[in-house]
């Protein structure tokens, strides 16, 4: 059994196509793992029967020689993607019990490529959070334990997506990243997390948080697996006006291409005061690995970095305040009845939305209000352009940028939830990529003294995910990171 869980997606595809294993065997191994790791609270809606059915179909496809690139691979889905006939809640009370009649573009592309759906994964409510603690279902738990044994956050918002892949209860998973929601939990859980270029993956059918920032991406155990599933997820979708009409190469082909001669930028502004020594150490380590692999390291400047977080915390809540207006109790989702329409709205939304979501709706509503719009939203959009320009000019000079993914390793559950500002600081290194619309990847690089995973982030110019994959795989090769969380379903590497 544990051998099945040990396989990377790339290896599994090979074994499946060689008929060494069947998809139903592989899927059953993961279904068992979902059971044994259930204390991690990763799955909010397991879809065991659907998984078995899809696995059978995959086996038939292999037998018929018509298997797609992801055929038979067990995959978990963040509960922000609408899945046809399977409850989709965004981990919010207001949508609990909501079952879409439609399938998001990204997930339907994955199922069309033969992927097997294991279930819906835990996340922060409406993807708002950095610890998965705002979920109506309670937090997803990190399978890694610190030496003192305290339960750790899997990160957020895609906590369940990261934790399940790290714990061996999903071979791969999909999540979304609005300000770091893929990269930060990937770093916390020791897996690879990719936030693609804005416009690369269709947003159609994904519950919207902040439309100009949201982007779907995969969680995997290796860079190669990331390229494999990403190739299936990406592509233009006429149903999403912001989706880019850009060709999708087979990214698996570029994973192991050499970084020799590549120029890697190190942005001075990412040295934060009071940053963990261990983070500085792993960043330096990454830099020397890439040098050893033949890349040229260049010190660069991204002068507007310090404005990214405040800028993000205007734009994201502003868009969210409008995006979440549709959850009004009128057509679907939960309603609290009242005498008048206004009272019904108030009662429904007060009961249905959690504290963090309400906080962000209020911040966003305020930022867009008459008399404040120019000072907040408009100013934030101007700053956003400057941040994008920083990256544009940096990428005239370098092929990729190397930074830490997070300012710390995974923290204890409950440690930051009562202090939103400290929580928001978690996104300090990840937010700029969302504002600029550029792709970023977090790759596990080593362990902290506490024995917790630390991630390095790579950033590239728009639609240059190929560069991310080649640089990330160079780090992966040198880091020899061992995915061995204490609370995994079995041995994973």
């Amino acid at each position, binding site marked *: 059994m544990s051998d099945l869980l040990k396989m990377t997606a790339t290896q599994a595809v090979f074994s499946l196509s060689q008929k060494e294993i069947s998809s139903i065997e592989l899927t059953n191994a993961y279904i068992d793992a979902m059971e044994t790791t259930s204390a991690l609270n990763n799955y909010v809606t397991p879809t065991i029967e659907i998984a078995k059915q899809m696995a059978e179909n995959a086996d038939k496809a292999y037998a018929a020689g018509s298997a797609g690139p992801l055929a038979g691979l067990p995959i978990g889905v963040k509960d922000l993607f609408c899945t046809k006939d399977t409850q989709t809640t965004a981990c919010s009370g207001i949508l609990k019990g*909501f079952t879409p009649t439609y399938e998001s573009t990204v997930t339907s592309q994955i199922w069309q490529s033969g992927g097997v759906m294991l279930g819906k994964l835990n996340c922060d409510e409406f993807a708002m959070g950095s610890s998965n603690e705002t979920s109506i279902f309670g937090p997803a738990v990190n399978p890694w334990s610190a030496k003192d044994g305290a339960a750790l956050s899997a990160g957020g918002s895609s906590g369940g997506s990261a934790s399940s892949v790290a714990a061996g209860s999903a071979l791969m998973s999909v999540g979304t990243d609005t300000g770091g929601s893929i990269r930060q939990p990937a770093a916390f859980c020791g897996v690879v997390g990719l936030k693609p270029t804005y416009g690369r993956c269709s947003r159609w059918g994904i519950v919207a948080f902040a439309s*100009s920032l949201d982007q779907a991406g995969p969680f995997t155990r290796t860079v190669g697996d990331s390229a494999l599933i990403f190739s299936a997820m990406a592509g233009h979708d006429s149903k999403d*006006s912001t989706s880019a009409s850009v060709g999708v190469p087979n990214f698996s082909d570029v994973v192991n291409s050499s970084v020799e001669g590549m120029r890697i930028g190190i942005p001075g502004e990412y040295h934060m005061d009071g940053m963990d020594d261990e983070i500085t150490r792993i960043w330096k380590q990454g830099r020397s690995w890439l040098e050893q692999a033949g890349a040229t390291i260049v010190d660069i400047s991204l002068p507007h970095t310090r404005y990214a977080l405040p800028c993000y915390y205007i734009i994201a809540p502003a868009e969210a305040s*409008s995006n979440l207006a549709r959850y*009004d109790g*009128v057509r679907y989702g939960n309603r609290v009845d009242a005498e008048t329409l206004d009272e019904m709205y108030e009662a429904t939304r007060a009961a249905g939305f959690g504290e963090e979501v309400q906080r962000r709706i209020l911040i966003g509503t305020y930022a867009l*209000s008459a008399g404040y719009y120019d000072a907040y939203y408009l100013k934030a959009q101007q700053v956003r352009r400057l941040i994008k320009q920083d990256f544009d000019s940096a990428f005239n000079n370098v092929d990729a940028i190397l930074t830490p993914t997070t300012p710390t390793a995974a923290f204890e559950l409950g440690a930051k939830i009562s202090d939103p500002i400290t929580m928001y600081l978690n996104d300090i290194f990840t937010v700029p990529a969302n504002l600029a619309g550029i792709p970023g990847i977090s790759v596990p690089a080593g362990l902290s003294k506490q024995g917790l995973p630390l991630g390095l982030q790579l950033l590239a110019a728009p639609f240059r995910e190929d560069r991310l994959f080649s640089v990330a795989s160079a780090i992966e090769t040198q880091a020899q990171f061992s995915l061995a969380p204490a609370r995994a379903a079995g041995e994973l590497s």
Partner: protein
Amino acid sequence: MSALVSGRTGDWEIVIGMEVHAQVVSNAKLFSGSSAVFGASPNHHVSLVDAAMPGMLPVINAECVKQAVITGLGLNAKINKFSVFDRKNYFYADLPQGYQISQFKHPIVGEGEVQIELADGSSHIIGIERLHLEQDAGKSLHDQHPSKSYIDLNRSGVALMEIVSKPEMHSAEQAAAYIKKLRSILRYLGTCDGNMEEGSLRADVNVSVRKPGEPLGTRTETKNLNSVRFIMQTIEYEVQRQIELIEDGGAVTQETRLFDTTTGMTRTMRGKEDAHDYRYFPDPDLLPLNFDDAFIADLKKDMPELPDEIKSRMVTEYGLSSYDANVLTEEKEVAAFYELASAGRDRKITANWMSVELFGALNKAGIDLAQSPVSPEQLGGLVDLISDGSISGKIAKEVFADMFETGKDAKQVVDEKGLKQVSDEGAIISMIDKVLASNQDKVDEYRSGKDKLFGFFVGQVMKASKGQANPGMVNQILKQKLDT
């Protein structure tokens, strides 16, 4: 400036501006593929996007964009090659997204103009401030259940053009002429069906009053007027109300008002303090709208002729009076009917027959031109018989009445009833001779100076011919016979 209204304290000038919501004629809604056709059962034209289901995204319907540009061209307006869709945020049960997608800072069409004509023959230019595209909301039905409201989302997401005039109208008559002309232009362009009863065209009317030469007064906005009569009533009522209010020492409050169709009065809907803060911001789900000169040029090429152009052609080429040309161009269908009926024959006679006989008969029967039993070709056939002297004008009226009744061709009626005009000189001479012979006494009286008897002889001859004798020839020959 137009007519002033006199109050107790002197004359008042009226200032009117209008925001017209015109439903775009299109295959589908503005941002979804659902049908935009009126009249389906409730909630039958609703897509996942229209119902604002989670994760749904708007995609612009290119046809609606074209229609807006065509309308802009028809209003001689500036077309903005760059425009932006914004979200207008507010909560209402029939607004599924919790925001309306509209255009705020960067509309698709900028300044333009509409020319209006008034009954006194004067013509005025009314400026257009802007035209923008936006989504319609759904409909709330409050009378279906004692304590609940029902929601119909068929209209949710249907494309509207909001056409904003400058505050350049100064009487109810001007406002009526403006909305009629605007409606006519939209219908000629085929960008809005102009059906006010079904709500395809509705107006919000802004009214204020001021002493001539003073700055603009405080205005009120009366919402959602769906007939020309209601627009005029609203203006008349508001003007009186505001003047009385100010002359009694009060002040007009800036507010939104509703028109009560049963009382003809307006009443407060919401005051300024309850005004929504719409929190406009660019819709991040949509890219700015960008098109080039070639796109506009393409649409320009296929622009239909507009009423003003047709009218001037009718006056200069067809020799019609400005009044007739006006009557014939107000409605697109009328102009089309006339062009067909008059093609290749006497334009003036056709114009007369259409505006007098045909419209008279339609009016009497209470039906539209579209239901006319007489087709353009048939009316043209009647005009032909008049022009070539086959029938007299008098007979033609009889023939027309029959055509209108039976739907038969003019020629068929004339043949069946034997109404063809007698222009045979010999036949007319013999009829005249008979009449003169049997009225020798009257002939003598005439010849001795009683000129007035000429009409009597004409009448007798026409009677003898059952009205079919060519009246011109009868006159001429009679005169010869009597005077020699």
